[in-house]
């Protein structure tokens, strides 16, 4: 199959499997699938406010989707989005809150975003280095780092960063807050536009630059790439570094665009959901936008019908998508 045919094939199979399993879970929960799917779509695509919430949910998924897609092209699996996001969000909130008053808004946002990117990138780089230079499996390392970062963030928060008895850091100054898009009172902010720009940038990086070429060659055949004299090891560590930065931007989205502080549990699950997004998009940077919207609809719609079907249905559907993608991915690599 050609690349495009394979993408269409995967998308169709994934959507059919999602609909089948979702309908089954609805029936088991005692809901009518026709009614429940209808409600799910109506409350997300049929209303301005609901659609705004879909955009709000899809925005960080573009970032965490890219955080999985980039290393995937280079033959590495980044399951550390959760930890990268948490480290970045905490660093971003603390630095933004400490910015001198009177700083112009664009500069404040730029600094806070850069801090988030760098904090996430540092975690990603550590994961990549453990894999490349110490031979430790990147999945186990990343899961360990996820747990360690969550624990350390909670400890730092309880010790000194959380305000009073809350589990929330100080509110960041207005200059660092991203304005909302104004979609019928939804939480969608201009970070949605940032996500589009970053996805386009990554698509360009992968397709048109030397480092993108090295990543793709490395992912398609490690030994061949090494034999061709490409700096394989360094490129793979860089892939994980950039990936961490992408997950870090998801943290910035939550802090600057929504909560205006770091909170315990902020963005939980979004790093993992990025795996499903990236795999549904077959690792293509621009397709990630579409895949993120699909999961935005499922997540927001799942909340809308939560009184009929437990909202964890969406977690199961996410796994179904990843399973379908795993079968397709294996055949491609083989």
């Amino acid at each position, binding site marked *: 199959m050609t690349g495009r045919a394979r993408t269409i094939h995967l998308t169709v199979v994934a959507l059919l499997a999602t609909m089948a399993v979702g309908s089954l879970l609805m029936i088991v929960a005692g809901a009518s699938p026709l009614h429940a799917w209808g409600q799910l779509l109506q409350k997300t695509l049929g209303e301005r406010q609901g659609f705004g919430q879909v955009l709000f949910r899809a925005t960080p998924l573009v970032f965490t989707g890219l955080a999985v897609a980039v290393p995937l092209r280079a033959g590495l699996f980044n399951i550390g989005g959760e930890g990268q996001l948490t480290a970045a969000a905490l660093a971003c909130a603390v630095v933004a809150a400490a910015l001198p008053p009177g700083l112009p808004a664009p500069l404040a946002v730029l600094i806070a975003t850069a801090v988030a990117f760098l904090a996430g990138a540092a975690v990603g780089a550590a994961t990549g280095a453990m894999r490349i230079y110490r031979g430790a499996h990147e*999945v186990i390392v990343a899961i360990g780092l996820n747990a360690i970062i969550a624990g350390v963030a909670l400890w730092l928060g309880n010790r000194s960063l959380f305000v009073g008895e809350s589990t929330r850091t100080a509110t960041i100054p207005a200059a660092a807050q991203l304005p909302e898009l104004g979609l019928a009172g939804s939480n969608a902010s201009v970070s949605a536009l940032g996500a589009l720009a970053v996805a386009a940038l990554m698509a360009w990086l992968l397709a048109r630059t030397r480092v993108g070429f090295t990543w793709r060659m490395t992912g398609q055949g490690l030994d061949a790439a090494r034999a061709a004299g490409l700096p394989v090891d360094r490129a793979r560590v860089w892939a994980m570094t950039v990936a961490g930065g992408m997950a870090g931007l998801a943290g910035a989205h939550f802090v600057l665009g929504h909560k205006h502080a770091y909170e315990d549990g902020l963005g939980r699950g979004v790093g993992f959901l990025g795996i499903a997004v990236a795999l549904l998009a077959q690792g293509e940077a621009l397709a990630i936008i579409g895949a993120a919207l699909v999961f935005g609809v499922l997540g927001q719609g799942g909340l809308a019908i939560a009184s009929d079907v437990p909202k964890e249905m969406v977690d199961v559907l996410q796994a179904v998508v990843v399973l379908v993608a*795993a079968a397709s991915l294996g055949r491609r690599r083989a």
Partner: protein
Amino acid sequence: MTGFVASLITLGFLAQVLRIAIPYVLAALGGTLSERAGVIDLALEAKLLMGAFAAAVLGYETGSIAVGIAGAAAAGVAVAAIQALWSVRLGADQVVTGIALNLGAFGFTRYFLGVRYGQGANSPRFDGVGTGVLTNPITWIAAALVALVVVGLWQTRLGLRVRAVGERPDAVAAAGVSVARVRWAAVLIGGAIAGVGGAQLSLPVDGFVAEASGGRGYVALAAVIMSGWRPGRAALWCLAFGLADAVQYRMQTHGVGLPAELTRLLPYVLALVLLAVWPRRVAPPRALGQPD
């Protein structure tokens, strides 16, 4: 501080280490089997979680501990069956398959609790096996399984075949043995063992709590790797992780050392440091991750 140290040299502490280590040990045994057969076992987390869930739900619904433990094994087999179907039959990417199963088990357990009991955080409480170690049937099952896997893998024909399909599947096929069938057997048996390990996460505490596996499946896989894919050593590494876990519980109750948020991380830190510095003299099974 002296109270804390004294509490570490008691029989009660030893029992606690064993109780905590059992899920790690059984997951690592299961993981060793499927990885030896050439199938990357990143689904250990799902097997533990589904085992814990099935043991609690079936134990509560039937009132029988035996049914609960059998259900845990069956749940592990169910996860392993999907894993084998994907890895062996469909030639799917084994890392991604394992992660999908872990995500799915996480969602499914909460979904089912919500549908059946009206809330997704935990199952109704019932009389489990208690926190005693010697009175807990899973302790004895675990001890037997360690011996069985060690002997089975090194001394039996099936064990030889499992090791062979992980190293040289082409040679096994040339000898007229079905590679797929041996891999299916290894993955399913491994799934049953890991599932029973999950029962230890719910039966001693009289119920299932969402996310009960808490990353133990990944730590167990780290133990498998550090052991050089040898079940006896993997079990010993798991005892070390159980020890780290038990020490951190004692540190918390005695208020010793680091704050609770940090001591909780001890097993993860240990696993990461060991993965980074432990010299690896043993290569992984040569066909690990290769569909055929």
